[in-house]
């Protein structure tokens, strides 16, 4: 029996084309892919010697970038290194992100053979105009076709990414995309509102006044409509932007919100182990170079203070499936049934922002929409309650 359950994240930093909104690290020059794959294998082996001995891998997530750009041979090689280096649980959840424009039936079969059992398609929209605006390389039809192929290849756990609150979007076009997504009967839907990230082409357009973003109030309306539509379709919201059929919540995703431990491989990948967080450098070239010299490609490391650990526990859990009152009480050494913390919880319930059954505090859809503000409010009373307890 292994001591700890962990997740593995692999960042594949290549794209055929950079989407206008995306700030994840990737490059569009693909000729370095082979050298990158060798470096990635090196990093996995390297880290497994350090951390692998007592860990059981319960989820693997290949993200990017575009992991489906790797050839079948490359995908197989990396997978072999993974399974040789780490103890992978029999019921592992193993996800790969795929661009609907870059998958073939052959590739999908190969994924299944390798052991990949969950696939996530970056569909984003079923509207031709919106896809152009986002600079996606696939068409609405390709997206539907990709999901059908995945089914044929035997995937019984499929996610579809949908993006909403695009400039100029109406609630009708937004719901139309969601309807077409639901028609494909995926097990999981990630529905994100568009965020204007600095250093993306879209952000610059915004700065130049070329696009007009939706107001926060309209966005809130989109959010609530999305949530209630998906609920009608049988998708339960278990995190701000994630919806799933019962039992199909993404294990790897929940690992993040539950402060689980994970190792990230590839440029810009993040890791969390023993209350230490670190991230890799954002450069394929440097990454390859450092690993060739058998050095860790780490850009930043931080050891979390007790204060940081407990605030993480609160803000991550509130974003997802909620937090046990007992956990709050032990973290902050305070009462949640009387006093200011109880008052805040009661206030949220009164306003319909949260549900609390006396054991667990969970946000409702309108609460998720205000998640950051509510988190600050709760952390504020928790921190004061702790200080007062310390004084007494």
């Amino acid at each position: 029996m292994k001591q700890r359950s962990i997740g593995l994240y692999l960042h594949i930093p290549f794209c055929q084309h950079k989407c206008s909104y995306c700030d994840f690290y990737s490059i569009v020059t693909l000729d370095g892919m082979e050298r990158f794959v060798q470096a990635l294998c090196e990093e996995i082996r390297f880290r497994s010697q350090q951390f692998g001995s007592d860990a059981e891998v319960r989820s693997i997530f290949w993200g990017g970038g575009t992991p489906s750009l790797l050839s079948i041979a490359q995908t197989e090689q990396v997978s072999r290194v993974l399974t040789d280096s780490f103890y992978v649980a029999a019921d592992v959840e193993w996800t790969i992100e795929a661009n609907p424009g870059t998958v073939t039936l052959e590739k999908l079969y190969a994924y299944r053979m390798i052991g990949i059992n969950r696939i996530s398609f970056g569909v984003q929209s079923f509207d031709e105009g919106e896809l152009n605006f986002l600079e996606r390389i696939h068409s609405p039809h390709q997206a539907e076709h990709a999901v059908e192929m995945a089914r044929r290849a035997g995937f019984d756990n499929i996610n579809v990414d949908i993006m909403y609150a695009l400039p100029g979007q109406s609630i009708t076009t937004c719901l139309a995309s969601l309807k077409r997504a639901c028609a494909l009967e995926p097990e999981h839907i990630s529905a994100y509102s568009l965020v204007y990230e600095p250093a993306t082409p879209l952000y610059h357009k915004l700065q130049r006044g070329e696009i007009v973003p939706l107001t926060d109030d309209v966005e809130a309306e989109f959010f609530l409509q999305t949530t209630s539509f998906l609920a009608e379709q049988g998708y339960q919201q278990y995190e701000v932007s994630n919806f799933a059929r019962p039992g199909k919540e993404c294990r790897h995703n929940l690992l993040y919100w539950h402060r689980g431990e994970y190792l990230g491989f590839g440029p810009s990948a993040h890791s969390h182990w023993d209350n230490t967080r670190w991230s890799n450098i954002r450069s394929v070239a440097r990454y390859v170079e450092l690993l060739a010299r058998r050095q860790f490609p780490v850009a930043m490391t931080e050891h979390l203070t007790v204060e940081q650990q407990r605030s993480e526990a609160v803000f991550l859990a509130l974003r997802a499936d909620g937090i046990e009152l007992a956990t709050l009480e032990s973290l902050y050494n305070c009462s949640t049934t009387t006093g200011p913390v109880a008052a805040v919880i009661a206030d949220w319930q009164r306003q319909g922002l949260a549900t609390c059954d006396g054991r667990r505090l969970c946000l409702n859809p309108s609460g998720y929409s205000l998640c950051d503000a509510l988190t600050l409010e709760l952390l504020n009373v928790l921190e004061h309650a702790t200080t007062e307890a310390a004084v007494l």
Partner: protein
Amino acid sequence: MASRASMDHIRNFCIIAHIDHGKSTLADRLLERTGRVTAREMVTDQILDDNPLEQERGITIKLHAVQMEYTARDGKTYILNLIDTPGHVDFSYEVSRSLAACEGALLVVDATQGVEAQTISNLYLAVDAGLEIIPVINKIDLPSAETMIENVRQQVIDLIGCRPDEIILASAKAGIGIEEILEAVVQNISPPKGNSEAPLRALIYDSLYDPYRGVIVNVRVFDGTLREKDKVLFMATGQTYEVDEVGVLYMEQHRTGELSAGNVGYFTASIRRVRDTKVGDTVTHAQRPCEQPIAGFREVKPMVFSGIYPADSDDFEDLRDALEKLALNDAAIQYEPETSAALGFGFRCGFLGLLHMEIVQERLEREFNQTIVTTVPNVRYLVQHTDGTELWVENPAQMPEPVKIAEILEPYIRAQIITPTEYIGPIMQLCIERRGVLLGQHYLTQTRVDLSFELPLAEVVFDFYDKLKSISRGYASLDYEYSDYKPGDLVKLDILLNGDPVDALSTIVHRQKAYEWGRRLCSKLKKLIPRHLFEVVIQAAIGSKIIARDSIAPLRKNVLAKCYGGDVTRKRKLLEKQKEGKKRMKQIGRVEVPQEAFLAVLSLGDE
């Protein structure tokens, strides 16, 4: 030795000029010419303005003096004491005291700009003090000067009634006319009169705090001789001290052991605070005092008041320490603790004027590292109660209930505005909007006019100067003096957030303007206060009567949707940043108010 030179060889003078007309550059040039500094030492221009704030603003706040030796064309060596003067209307009393220490003044006018209001008012002070005026037209080397010189020359002649050939044409920058200026100082300004054997009479025109020696008192000795170990009496404060050190001022203090009639210099006497050495006070010997103090002494009274609070209530004691240290070197600032329901513990501070207030705020932040919240400045009101008693109100929150008030009196000023004629219209309109009354207009030339207005000081406190500058494209200049208190139809305007009054946002306004102000203030606050989880209602009220209302709809969305789960660090940092932002806000009931909201009233005019 310099201090024993016969009075015939001493000349005491100052420079009167408008900001940017080249006073500091000219002073530097005189120092260089007389060998007080070498060109190599003049790495930073404008040696006399040693406070970084002064250099940034191009104004002089603290006074400086420097003694030079100059061998004139007559072959004799003279001692020239140049006494610097502050260049802003807030400090006109200080100007009058430094003028009183001189026998002459250089009137410096920019060849391309002409005479400005500040120059005229200081010139009148100098003429009143009986000073010999030496007119200088500066910056004659500028290309644009050529067409202007004759015009400016005429302005100067009209102003002081001199002969055209008495005006020295100079360029401090290019070193033109420096010799002529020094000769004119020696030949035209009379030497000081006085008796070094008579009882001591010395005028304090400035003082500054030195952490090692205590206050360094700058004086002009009119009669008698001041020596080390003398017991001296400060006539206005009645305090006595034993003198430690006496000297004259070169670039640094230069110890001479004594200072006799006619000369300018400094002494120290282990004095702990500058407020014990009041500008304008007379220093005499305790054992053998003079009969009459030097005329013109006045207690400096603050005219503008504002609350200064620590941004974080825990820093109250730090702020107290900072104010104490700042006051060591600023005799004019007054402060006393006060409590605000909105802002917690802080201080009500009194300033000479708006510039002085800004300087204090900036010094607190820069020199003393304080993060402060300041409230809207106000003037001091005199309230006459219905029962006949009187109350001075320096904080709008202390204004009594309307039913108890018989009358409120407010301070007025006489403002002098000099402007090119094309801006008369907009300036008149501005002054009338500010409840001003035109007292007179006087054409200095065909294209320049001198307007004088009587205005309530409270109306000038609100961005009047910036407005004046903007409507006249920077050409109008302003000077003012305090006149007297007059009754006004004034009311206290309160602001309520979700029903809770915010004492720090209360203002006193004219009744006719109250509705407009209330409406604009509410809409301004609506923009400055962030959305909350609940609706925030902003109301303006006079007494219990609500005169304006606005509301901020509750927040509906505040979450970062797309979030790569693995990067928790970034998420936590964003949250910590939001938390820091909240910390800088002030809590009124449940409403969090950003600090800039407390100054919202000041920029209402922009809307």
